[in-house]
């Protein structure tokens, strides 16, 4: 799948722009603040109906204007798809697919897969476990509707159970028969969800290891340790036994909402022991594995958006990374770089069609 053409109007710092892209590598260059990332964000909008950078649609309109539009012409395995995303301040965002309005945004998500690698991705390593669960849940939900359904049910029952535990704590009395239906559901769903997560990692981890090995030149061994209480034989008994703790802390202390995915390098958590360059290499390998997973399930190559990925990597890793993504395993590529000469010298050595765009104050022009 690839994006042939994009048209923007009053989107972020672009008053008006129209760009035709290469179906292989597109390199967006320009000085800081010129609008390179904003162009990637417009592509993100077309694929996932929202910004990758900020969740408030209003903030994506050019200053002092009332609306923005992003139009894109895609080629999905030979089928022409035109997406129009229109947002007017104070109104509902509209999405049109081949001229027909899409009612539910969630129906559109997944049709045009996209993977974005951005500088703040290392938050995935540095922040709390919630973000890592969301990263993996996101992939699992897109591939498995049953998983999504279980997750929604789980979150609902957890909310009900937490409300109940709080009431018990206020009354100073634990009512076993009352809480039993919730315990039963949470235990059941935790077992399903945790085994789905474990099964997914079996498919995902080899891809991650391979990608990381290529970028780092096989210097470090990495792995993901899935930490969960829910797969142990005694989970049910443990869940019952933690009722006392729940009563004191006024919340549920066991279940898949406590899971973590610990990223490790040579057996140690990368969060504490990885250098910035290693962390960066790790998240890039994570995202590329996400690409490969989407590709194997959706049978079309996602668009890859690489925002400023050369930052913090040494020259050896940059070269290996570029060799990896420009190899024909990946599809259409968008790269931003504030140092045009660097990208140019790297890309020119490669056997791939590439186009360069010079971006300045919201204007896009060809550059060579």
């Amino acid at each position, binding site marked *: 799948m690839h994006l042939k053409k994009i048209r923007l109007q009053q989107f972020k710092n672009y008053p008006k722009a129209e760009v035709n892209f290469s179906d292989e590598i597109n390199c967006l260059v320009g000085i800081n603040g010129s609008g390179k990332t904003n162009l990637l964000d417009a592509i993100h909008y077309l694929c996932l109906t929202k910004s990758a950078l900020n969740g408030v649609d209003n903030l994506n309109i050019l200053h002092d204007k009332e609306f923005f539009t992003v139009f894109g012409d895609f080629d999905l395995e030979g089928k022409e798809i035109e997406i129009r995303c229109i947002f007017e301040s104070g109104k509902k965002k509209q999405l049109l697919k081949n001229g027909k309005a899409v009612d539910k945004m969630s129906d559109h998500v997944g049709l045009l897969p996209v993977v974005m690698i951005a500088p703040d991705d290392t938050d995935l390593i540095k922040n709390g476990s919630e973000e890592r669960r969301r990263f993996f849940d996101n992939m699992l939900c897109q591939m498995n509707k049953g998983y999504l359904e279980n997750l929604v*049910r789980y979150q609902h029952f957890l909310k009900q159970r937490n409300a109940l535990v709080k009431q018990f704590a206020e009354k100073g009395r634990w009512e076993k028969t*009352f809480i039993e*239906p919730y315990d039963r559901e949470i235990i059941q769903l935790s077992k399903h969800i945790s085994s789905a997560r474990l099964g997914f990692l079996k498919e995902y981890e080899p891809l991650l290891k391979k990608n990381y090995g290529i970028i780092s030149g096989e210097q470090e061994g990495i792995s993901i340790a899935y930490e969960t209480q829910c797969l142990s034989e005694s989970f049910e008994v443990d869940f019952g036994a933690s009722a006392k703790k729940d009563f004191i802390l006024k919340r549920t202390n066991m279940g898949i909402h406590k899971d973590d995915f610990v990223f490790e390098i040579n057996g140690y958590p990368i969060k504490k022991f990885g250098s910035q360059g290693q962390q960066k290499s790790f998240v890039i390998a994570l995202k590329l594995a996400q690409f490969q997973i989407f590709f194997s399930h959706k049978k079309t190559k996602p668009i890859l958006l690489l925002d400023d990925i050369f930052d913090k990597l040494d020259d050896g890793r940059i070269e290996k990374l570029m060799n990896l993504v420009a190899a024909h395993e990946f599809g259409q590529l968008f790269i931003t770089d504030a140092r045009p000469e660097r990208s140019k010298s790297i890309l020119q050595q490669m056997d791939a069609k590439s186009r360069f765009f010079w971006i300045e104050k919201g204007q896009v022009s060809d550059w060579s």
Partner: protein
Amino acid sequence: MNFPSKLIENAVNEISRLPGIGKKTALRLVLHLLKQNVPVTEELSNALLSLRKEIKYCKKCHNVSDTDICNICSGIRRDKSIICVVEDIPDVLAIENTAQYTGLYHVLGGVISPIQGIGPDELKIESLIKRIEDSRTEDKIEEVILALPATMEGDTTSFFITRKLKELNIKVSTIARGIPIGGELEYTDEVTLGRSILTRVNYSID
């Protein structure tokens, strides 16, 4: 909205507190009443007042009633060995309209939802258990049908009641869920269709 009269404003405010009625509709109703003769309004307000003051809830099943025991509970043709547990009053009407059921009802008044502060004590669950226990002497209740909504709260409530009834050694059943009559499979949502396959029943021709 600005009103020419304080009296109209009061009436509009009161009427627009009803569900489904906004200020404009309320104003239309108020102006309509003003055009009618005085007795029309009197009858309306009397009907509402006596409704509120004289309405009773059946002591057995908690359905609305004019008497202490409702028509269904005291009906001689009703099968008194079976009770259908429902969430609220409209559900009784819905099942009555099917004309397929001749047993008794039990109106819970809601379903369990801790987030909204509704627990078993807020519902008529204890009274259901007492009703079954008391029936030991005459008109023995032999089956309880759970006809609660197919939501997570409905399921939780069903589970809770079943657990409570277990000690009483009584048959507990729940209404079937699946494809609506006249429905096409291709338009049925995946969850319902999936569930209807898991809980399929034997097909018998006799």
